[in-house]
């Protein structure tokens, strides 16, 4: 049956069609829709399966992995940076293995579209010594889920599926199974202490040897089942292209465009490669070009004198692939002498950049505005974290961003390093659960003095509005967590009147002066894209600017920075009616000359 699917839909459906019945993960672009889609399918088809967000990737990995140890088919989903968090259990799980299936789905982001780093999870799989499958398209992504399940069960090893953003968010007509009868397995944990609780050194050493045997057996399998048929279709000649995942699509199209005949071998499983058997094929060619992204995973395994790629600068060394890089590589190898088929001729004049910005009406904007007004830019250090609120960087209200939870630990560090300044850290609710709690405990018992503002909008807004723990039922409460950690904790319920928010932070500053350890301010907010709650908060109070009063001081366009505010041709600020959602927040404080007033006509 054919269906038009996005890669992440295809993976979710592939999971159901492979009878995976335990799925856990943490949201992160480009992986987020996978688990969301499993949840949708569960509801639609009334399936009996576990599909839930975990507090972070390590927790998600461990929940799912336990399922696989107990014999079920399980999967964990995350983005590449999330795998850093889950790398601890991964390294051990690779030694121990599993009884059922464990598919670790990690979405990479070549080109940094929405990530801090461009790391290659295939290289992580190689580091951990587990097999990895690299889909090129949504169709591959769907097919490879069941292949991953087979490999994971056959070899009793965690198996990674590594789609990149251009697979996760690609859309294609995909051939999928019809009338699948969902048939989950029953879990049955079998006690085997020497396997599941292997301690150093004797237990782990034996498992280490088993892991090496396993990876060698998988190499053999990779050759016999997946690679040999590809080489059998090859003809030999000037050029052999070795590739995996999206590299295949780039290479195939570039060779067609440039009119160059070459053999292309696509590795479905780029690690572990049977390197010697592959090298035996090299005698039939003058040049071997490896096309892969974002790092040299294949190339490092099969290095030889006539192999070219990223390591010898024949291909691009960073950033997402483009066909022009392949054209350039073929030019360097002397295989292409024609014209540039992909000239990029930008528009002759400069076009203003359009950086993403906090949404109109987003409470984060008021919170940051108030913090800056009270604590001042020069007198304070502002470590922050990962989420929508990172966009307050546009308001110059953020000094550092490192990784999930680091705002709290770095606040500790800054308070030690530069105690003359105020340190005001900001973190979202989901990020606090993910990585913010242990550093808060650390700060309390070591008495680091800073203000931690937890922006609780009760939604993981950045990645598509997944629901965090406190939303499911009332049992998890951030205020109680912070108190339980021993921090002096205050709560503020956000109001659209900016004066209220400013007074709250004035109070926080007084508390700060007298504090001997960290103080926490939990700000109860909402997200304007959160349809379930936004109606209670936004009342349609639209603003307009009285042109005569506007002195073009830039205050609203640079410090408050709500997207509808911009200069018109007369050099006066105007509010764009298409963008303003009528939150009314800017009306009282933002403009020093009080040029902002209620637009009575629209506010009716």
């Amino acid at each position, binding site marked *: 049956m*054919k*269906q*038009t699917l*996005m890669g992440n839909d295809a993976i979710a459906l592939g999971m159901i069609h492979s009878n995976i019945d335990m799925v856990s993960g943490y949201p992160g*672009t*480009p992986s*987020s829709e996978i688990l969301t889609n499993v949840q949708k399918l569960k509801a639609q088809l009334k399936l009996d399966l576990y599909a839930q967000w975990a507090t972070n990737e390590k927790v998600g990995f461990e929940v799912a992995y336990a399922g696989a140890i107990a014999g079920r088919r399980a999967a964990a989903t995350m983005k590449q940076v999330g795998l850093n968090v889950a790398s601890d259990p991964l390294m051990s799980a690779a030694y121990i293995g599993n009884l059922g299936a464990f598919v670790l789905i990690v979405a990479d982001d070549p080109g940094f*579209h*929405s990530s801090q780093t461009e790391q290659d999870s295939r290289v992580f799989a190689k580091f951990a010594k587990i097999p990895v499958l690299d889909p*090129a*398209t949504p169709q591959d992504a769907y097919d490879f889920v069941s292949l991953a399940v087979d490999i994971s069960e056959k070899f009793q090893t965690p198996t990674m599926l590594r789609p990149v953003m*251009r697979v996760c*968010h*690609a*859309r*294609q*007509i995909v051939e999928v199974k019809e009338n699948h009868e969902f048939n989950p397995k029953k879990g049955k944990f079998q006690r085997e202490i020497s396997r599941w609780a292997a301690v150093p050194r004797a237990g782990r050493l034996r498992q280490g040897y088993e892991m090496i045997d396993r990876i060698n057996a998988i190499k053999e399998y990779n050759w016999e089942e997946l690679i040999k048929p590809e080489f059998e279709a090859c003809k030999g000649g000037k050029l052999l292209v070795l590739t995996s995942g*999206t590299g*295949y*699509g*780039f290479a*195939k*199209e570039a060779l067609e465009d440039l009119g160059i005949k070459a053999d292309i071998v696509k590795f479905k499983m780029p690690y572990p490669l049977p390197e010697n058997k592959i090298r035996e094929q090299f005698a039939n060619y003058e040049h071997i070009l490896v096309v892969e992204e974002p790092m040299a995973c294949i190339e490092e395994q099969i290095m030889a004198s006539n192999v070219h790629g990223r390591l010898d600068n024949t291909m691009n060394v960073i950033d*997402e692939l*483009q*066909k*022009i890089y392949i054209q350039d590589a073929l030019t360097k190898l002397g295989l292409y002498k024609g014209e540039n*088929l*992909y*000239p*990029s*001729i*930008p*528009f*002759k*004049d400069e*076009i*203003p950049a*359009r*950086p*993403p*910005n*906090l*949404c109109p009406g987003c409470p984060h904007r008021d919170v940051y505005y108030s913090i800056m007004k009270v604590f001042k830019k020069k007198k304070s250090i502002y470590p922050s974290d990962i989420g*929508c609120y990172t*966009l307050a960087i546009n308001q110059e209200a953020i000094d550092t961003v490192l990784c999930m939870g680091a705002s709290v630990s770095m606040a500790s560090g800054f308070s030690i390093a530069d105690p003359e300044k105020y340190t005001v850290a900001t973190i979202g609710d989901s990020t606090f659960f993910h990585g913010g709690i242990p550093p808060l405990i650390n700060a309390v018992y070591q008495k680091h003095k800073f203000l931690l503002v937890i922006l609780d909008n009760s939604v993981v807004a*950045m*990645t*598509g509005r997944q629901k965090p723990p406190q939303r499911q039922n009332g049992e998890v409460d951030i205020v109680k967590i912070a108190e339980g950690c021993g921090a002096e904790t205050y709560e503020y319920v956000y109001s659209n009147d900016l004066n209220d928010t400013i007074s709250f932070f004035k109070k926080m500053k007084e508390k700060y002066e007298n504090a001997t350890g960290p103080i926490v301010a939990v700000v109860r907010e909402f997200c304007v*894209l959160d349809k379930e709650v936004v109606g209670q908060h936004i009342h349609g109070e639209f603003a307009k600017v009285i042109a005569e009063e506007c002195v073009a001081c830039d205050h609203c366009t640079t410090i408050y920075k709500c*997207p509808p505010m911009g200069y018109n041709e007369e050099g006066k600020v105007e509010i764009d*009616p*298409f*963008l303003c959602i009528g939150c009314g927040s800017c009306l009282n404080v933002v403009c020093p000359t009080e040029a902002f007033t209620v637009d009575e006509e629209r506010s009716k």
Partner: protein
Amino acid sequence: MRYQVVIAGFGGQGSVFLVKILALCAGNKNVACLGTENHGMSQRGGAVSCTIKLGDYSNPIIDPSQADLLIGLEKNEALRNINYLKPSGTLAVNAEDSFPKDDVSAKVIQIDAFTKAKNREFPIQGLNVYMLGVVLAKCEDFPFTLEDVKEALVQFNPKVAQENIEVLEKAIEDIKGK
């Protein structure tokens, strides 16, 4: 058939929706397609460009100088992506009359949809569908017909299909006079 489309706009303008509709059109006509969309920043006012390649392709990205059609939901986003368009391609753009047509080597179909929306001639959320209507009316090599698009709109969401179809027809009406 081979046909490559870039859709450029900014957060909240619905570029992704257009890709979904074109993918449905392709599916209904049994044409292979491969598209990509940007998520993450897409709802927060950042620049968003999506692609869809119709026909036998193996990679979803469109390279510079390769697109047959660029749909610009906004003037600057159209110009930012102009390098993806073939010199012989078509640009359908929502822009005021000051749009620098003469500096673009492709064929330009231009309409000021913002002003029409401001005058409440159609709902602003329909801007993307409006621009698709413009394409249907004026872009000769566009591979789908009005009927194909209507069918896809109904398939996608029958509840709002009628509204969307009205926007589509309004656009066709508006551009015909030009």
